[in-house]
């Protein structure tokens, strides 16, 4: 019985306290209203954010500019590539800012369903390939030539690679021909699927720290390279069309011209945000800077974008023209 009294007394005490505390700013007071309701005709802008830090950097800057210079209401949506493209048709996504090739998706949504259109290059060059940790490249400089890989295959053996050298692949969303490459270059390696970027980065980090042998799939621009500058292994040089037949690929990956994709509806809407997306153009260094603010310095997206925009106002202004 007593415990209920106690609870009741506590309730009354709270009540009493609140009566004395009835002073302070009220919600909706002009002094405390934080949100900006000013703005032009931009309206809402649905921006897909694919799950890697480089993209997050693109999105952070574009969203910041759209919000502060154009007065848009930006809705960032964290989505994987395939789902983001799907969103063009349903009107849930207006723009994808960093597309890596993805000819399959282009065929399906741009040529097929006609729900998406291209919106030009981001200016970023995407490099995909096989990378080794820097200590290994230093200790065995000849390892950066693919012809020497077999010589070292034994050192790359792991519990997963079944007696061959291990080539570690990451997130299956990313463009990869590695299985075909190993076969067609007749390398004594086996592709092992780590299955996620987290697992892949952690593997490189451990390998560099403990001086372990490791080779895997990686790409740039990528924030992790500013922590551990991985070294690329040269595969037979890319020539136009050498990757036409996916099963017979025996050459390096092309350098990807990363581009922007928007929904067909958004392109026709005349929204100033569309113009911004179309004009958005920067360099790998720019992206790496912002990505480093986010991933290494642990700044929020908005703070990172503000820092870069304040320092690069001239670039931003060319996007707004």
């Amino acid at each position, binding site marked *: 019985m007593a415990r209920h009294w106690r609870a009741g007394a506590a309730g009354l005490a709270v009540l009493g306290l609140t009566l004395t*505390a009835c002073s302070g700013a009220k919600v909706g007071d002009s002094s405390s209203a934080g949100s900006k309701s000013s703005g032009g005709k931009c309206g809402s802008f649905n921006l897909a954010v694919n799950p890697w830090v480089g993209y997050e950097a693109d999105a952070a800057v574009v969203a910041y500019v759209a919000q502060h210079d154009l007065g848009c209401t930006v809705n960032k949506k964290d989505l994987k590539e395939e789902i983001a493209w799907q969103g063009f048709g349903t009107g849930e996504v207006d723009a994808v800012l960093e597309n890596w090739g993805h000819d399959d998706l282009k065929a399906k949504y741009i040529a097929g369903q006609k729900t998406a259109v291209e919106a030009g290059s981001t200016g970023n060059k995407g490099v995909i390939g096989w990378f080794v940790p820097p200590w290994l490249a230093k200790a065995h400089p000849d390892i950066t030539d693919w012809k020497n890989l077999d010589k070292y295959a034994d050192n790359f053996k792991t*519990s997963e690679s079944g007696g061959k050298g291990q080539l570690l692949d990451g997130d299956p969303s990313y463009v990869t021909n590695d299985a075909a490459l190993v076969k067609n270059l007749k390398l004594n390696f086996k592709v092992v699927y780590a299955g996620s970027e987290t697992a892949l980065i952690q593997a490189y980090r451990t390998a560099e720290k403990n001086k372990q042998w490791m080779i895997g799939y990686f790409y740039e621009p990528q924030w992790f390279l500013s922590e551990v500058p991985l070294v690329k292994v040269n595969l037979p040089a890319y020539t136009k069309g050498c990757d036409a037949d996916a099963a017979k690929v025996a050459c390096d990956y092309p350098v990807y011209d990363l581009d922007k994709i928007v929904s067909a509806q958004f392109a026709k809407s005349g929204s100033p945000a569309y113009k911004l997306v179309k004009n958005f153009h920067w360099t790998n260094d720019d992206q790496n800077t912002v990505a480093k603010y986010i991933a290494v310095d*642990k700044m929020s997206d908005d703070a990172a974008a503000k820092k870069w925009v304040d320092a690069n106002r001239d670039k931003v202004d060319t996007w707004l023209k």
Partner: protein
Amino acid sequence: MAVADATAPVATIRNKVSRPMVVAAILLAWLVLFAVLRGRQTLALAAADLTGLHRWLNDLNDSIGANRNSNPLFLYFFNEIRLAIDNLVTFVQSLISQPTGSRPVPQIGWLGVVGLTGYVSWAVGNWRVALLAVAGFTFFGLQGLWQESMDTLALTLSAVLVALLIGIPLGVWAGLSDRFNRIMTPFLDFMQTMPTFVYLAPLTLIFLIGGASAVITTVIYAAPPAIRITAHAIRSVPETTVEAADSLGTTRTQQLLKVLLPMSKRTVVMGVNQTIMAALAMVTIAALIDAPGLGKTVVQALQSLDVGTAFNAGLAIVVMAIVLDRVTTAAAARTETARRTGGHLLKWRRPLLVAGGIAAAVLVYLSHTYVWAAEFPGSGSTGSHIASAAGTTTTWLQDHLSGLTNGVRDVITNGLLNPFQTLLTDSPWWLVGVTLVALGAVLGGRLAAVTAAVCVGLLVGTGLWSDSMTTLASTAVATVLVMLFGVVFGVWMGRSQLVDRIVRPSLDAAQVMPPFVYLVPFLALFGATRFTAIVAAVVYAAPVAIKIIADGVRNVSESTVEAATSAGCNTWQIITKVQLPMARSALTLATNQGLIYVLSMVVVGGLVGAGALGYDVVAGFSQGQLYGKGLAAGLAIVLLGVMFDRITQAAARRTRA
């Protein structure tokens, strides 16, 4: 129970002698034939290769996407569902987590939510859980994750509400009708074991990106426990009570409302509890389709391998789970005690409830009106302390333990996993199939054998036989480890209330902490390997097995243990000769549940190096042209689950019979 167990050995003596020998003979025959036929008809399929079925599933998916806007099913059915659920989510969010209109903060601020939570916890439970709830919710604010936590709470509450609205009526129906129960069971199995990744992309196509899809994803996974446990509750109402009601001439509706439902209330509340836990387990997965909340914080932090921040958010999910679990458990206990004591207590309770209600309403009003009560004060510095401490600990562990861990990994991989996997993948498929069917027949009887045969046939049909066998090998090793931990900790906890109280919160944490938070350190320690995947599965599945075994051991009657003690048995003898044998049905149940939970981690395993089915599912989620293969892999996981579930359950019934 005790009586049934005492008679069991006599009845099964003949079986006991022969069954292990038959099993041994089957396994021996398999080994011999494996040596002869190794490497033939293994049905291997490379990572990028597809079968006709996979392509057909791709086309099906594409055509649904292309016809979305013209199909009447979408226009009049799915869109309406989406709208209703979207409105529900938006409404709850506007109450506690998201600003609406010109208002910069949600309708109810932190003080109101904390007050209301405390009041409700006290009203349905007791003052102890109310205190826990208030402390827990305040902790979210201190962590700097108030809004994220409220978003997660809003989605969880909406999902649980929808799951119960669907689940309880279906559960009651399944409890009353054997036929409906039989129809329902395979669907429930399907909903619980089909990996979420498989239907995540199609769901966003049908219900669009946003709250509705997130809620529906969660409901699919969280409704089955509500249905199963409600059905079980209705069934466990004693026959005599129902007959007594019958003889009084009650109608069927009266019987349901006046007898069955009130008497099964306690168990139904446990179903609500399990539904909440399942819903919280989906928080990070729903974040992949833009569900707001703590899951997003975890996913985003892991992109830059920021374990500290991910841990902080993961901890908030754990705290929320523990608060909701304890409150619902206390609510279940209260329905019990209220029924027993009743009477005079009610007299005082009512005015107190009113007083508490008024106090809560005042707090809600304050948090609606004043900024200090609406936005959580402070900058969440506790959260950054937690994050940096977790980060430092992780780094230390990685630096100091990696030599040791590699040794453990290699011993288990080379000594146990690799030989077993070779045996499964390099045997001709029909040999493995025949072995499985024979084992099913010996252990579970004719029905189990038929189920095994059907499942083997369908597995071959998915085109992913070889991957299924690789996954099966890892699953089996993980299940063995789960049972090892289950027995050791389960017995320990079952024998000591103190140990139970200390260990249990960590078990709860292991079940709801998003796997990737602890997987990053594991990845550093063990690399991206099948072993890491096994460890992840063990961390997730062992708590269930431990809890079930601890319960089983505790339920062995005290007088039996005392009798054994007075007969001069030492502790070891009591455990091995009395407690474990008498908790046999708990052991089989633990094996069954342990296996199902291990299978539910196959996809997470695919994300950390397990390859095989888990990777196929992840790849299908990520790449359009692999969609069909991912779906087939999901089906294969379900088939493995159903096959082992039926065999272990039939085996359990036999040992009990």
